């Protein structure tokens, strides 16, 4: 089931939190929604789930518009809201039953679904406790369980792994990947390795606009050539070496590596590589080059580049 976002705009007091965002997510795809705080991730998710109305634009989920048929859309979606709000005074089982009934799960299927969710989310030991008595990680599992209780075609998860311990994170990621094979999943996160581990596609949003869209590999190749090289040069003065490195073509930025003597990180433009020039320069000046390591561009750097300009 595809989710189509069309020219979405959301204004808060004249300020645009989401600014003309369009994209499509298809069945069998896990889309990672990345962006700094306040970029408009949660707002976009709230609009898709019909909690907020867009100022302009529309979203279609499986062909149903959020403006015209919100009830149909809500049936198709399982949603884990930001900060995972739950009824703390309810027992886990009762809460899951309440969610299932509201989602329109058939009466005779309710108990079966609850049992499945308890197993899938590892809530076996906690199912009779009040939600308020649970730790943050278990509450997060309850939040996931209620989102998946009606076996929705579309899952929208706002920061699904916050508060989980590393083992749980791995389990939940596995679960999301599994779900992503047959369903449409949109998840937001701050954790970059998580996106690489779980998502087929990454969407970086900044100040309400889409800054990048593609697979992790795509995004890398878009900034490819912009290498980062770590070099270590001996027998020279720090300042001399810095100055000399700046004169080399294609070099855009030179940083000292803190805590390591005479070690530098050199960023280069995408047009060409200055490795040979660096080597030649060292020979000319009589410096000894003891290390030269090219780094692959990390997702963190792409993210940083796209969201700080």
């Amino acid at each position: 089931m595809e989710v189509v976002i069309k020219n979405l705009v959301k204004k808060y007091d004249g300020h645009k939190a989401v600014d003309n965002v369009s994209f499509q997510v298809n069945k069998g795809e896990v889309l990672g929604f990345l962006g700094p705080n306040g970029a408009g991730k949660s707002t976009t998710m709230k609009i898709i789930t019909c909690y907020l109305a867009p100022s302009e634009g529309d979203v279609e989920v499986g062909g149903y518009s959020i403006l015209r048929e919100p009830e149909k859309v809500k049936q198709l979606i399982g949603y884990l809201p930001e900060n995972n709000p739950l009824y703390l005074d309810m027992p886990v089982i009762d809460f899951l039953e309440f969610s299932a009934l509201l989602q329109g799960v058939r009466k005779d299927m309710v108990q079966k679904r609850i049992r499945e969710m308890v197993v899938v989310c590892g809530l076996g030991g906690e199912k009779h406790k009040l939600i308020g008595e649970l730790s943050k990680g278990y509450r997060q599992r309850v939040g996931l369980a209620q989102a998946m209780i009606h076996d929705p075609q579309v899952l929208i998860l706002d920061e699904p792994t916050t508060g989980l311990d590393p083992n749980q994170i791995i389990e939940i990621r596995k679960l999301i990947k599994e779900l992503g094979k047959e369903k449409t999943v949109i998840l937001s996160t701050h954790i970059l390795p998580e996106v690489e581990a779980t998502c087929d596609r990454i969407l970086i949003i900044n100040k309400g606009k889409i800054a990048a869209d593609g697979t992790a590999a795509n995004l890398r190749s878009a900034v490819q050539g912009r290498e980062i090289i770590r070099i270590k040069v001996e027998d020279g003065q720090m300042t001399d070496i810095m100055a000399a490195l700046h004169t080399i073509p294609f070099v855009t930025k030179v940083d000292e590596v803190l805590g390591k003597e005479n070690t530098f990180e050199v960023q280069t433009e995408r047009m060409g590589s200055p490795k040979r020039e660096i080597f030649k320069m060292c020979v000319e000046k009589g410096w000894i080059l003891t290390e030269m390591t090219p780094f692959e561009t990390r997702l963190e750097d792409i993210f940083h580049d796209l969201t700080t300009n």
Partner: protein
Amino acid sequence: MRAILIIARKELQSFFDSLIAYVLLIVFLAITGFFTWLLESDVFFIKQATLSVFFGYANFALLIFIPAVTMKMLAEENKSGTIELLLTKPITNWQVLWGKFLACLALIVFALLCTLPYYITVANLSVGKFDHGVIFCGYFAILLTSAAYISIGLFASSISNNQIVSFLIALVIGVIFFFIFGMVSNVFGGALGDTLNYLDFMSHYGSISRGVVDSRDLIYFGSIMLLGMVLSELSLSKRTISE
């Protein structure tokens, strides 16, 4: 309808899971029982087999009882964010509101059922022919007033995320409807006085509980109830109104 019942059931459950229901029921029964049976101007004093004393005091007990029940209904959901969880389920704002309304009304009905022994006692005390109709009308009047007041309480709860604030707002509106309109209407004469008198809860309550069920009174309570619900709905749907 199904969604309304699911929500009502959940809210009722949470009344009885927490202490709210028990504390309020005990307070309600204690207040009405004390004034009906123990105070000087009680049932025995007036020497008539009626429950008019009870119906008079029950209303004032409900003036405080109902805001205490409705205050958390939406204010807490707003505060904890669970309102987002609820409204992203395939249900409408109306279903949420009527579900909560129904739960509150059911609690009131339960409280009133607990006062049935009063009725049975008085009916057995009576020497001559006992007027069951008046008792029935008295309970009916309480239910109508409660329904109208619950919707006011829900509205007060919907506009705030602080329970105390919603309690006070509901109480102030309640006091206006229970006392102020009636008092002010005596000061003004003519059309203004009549209008204010028409807005007064007590004048309608009084006539129904005396056994006179007039369509004007039903329309009055019905409209107050609907107005409260419409305002609550507006307050809930504010978030979905685009700029």
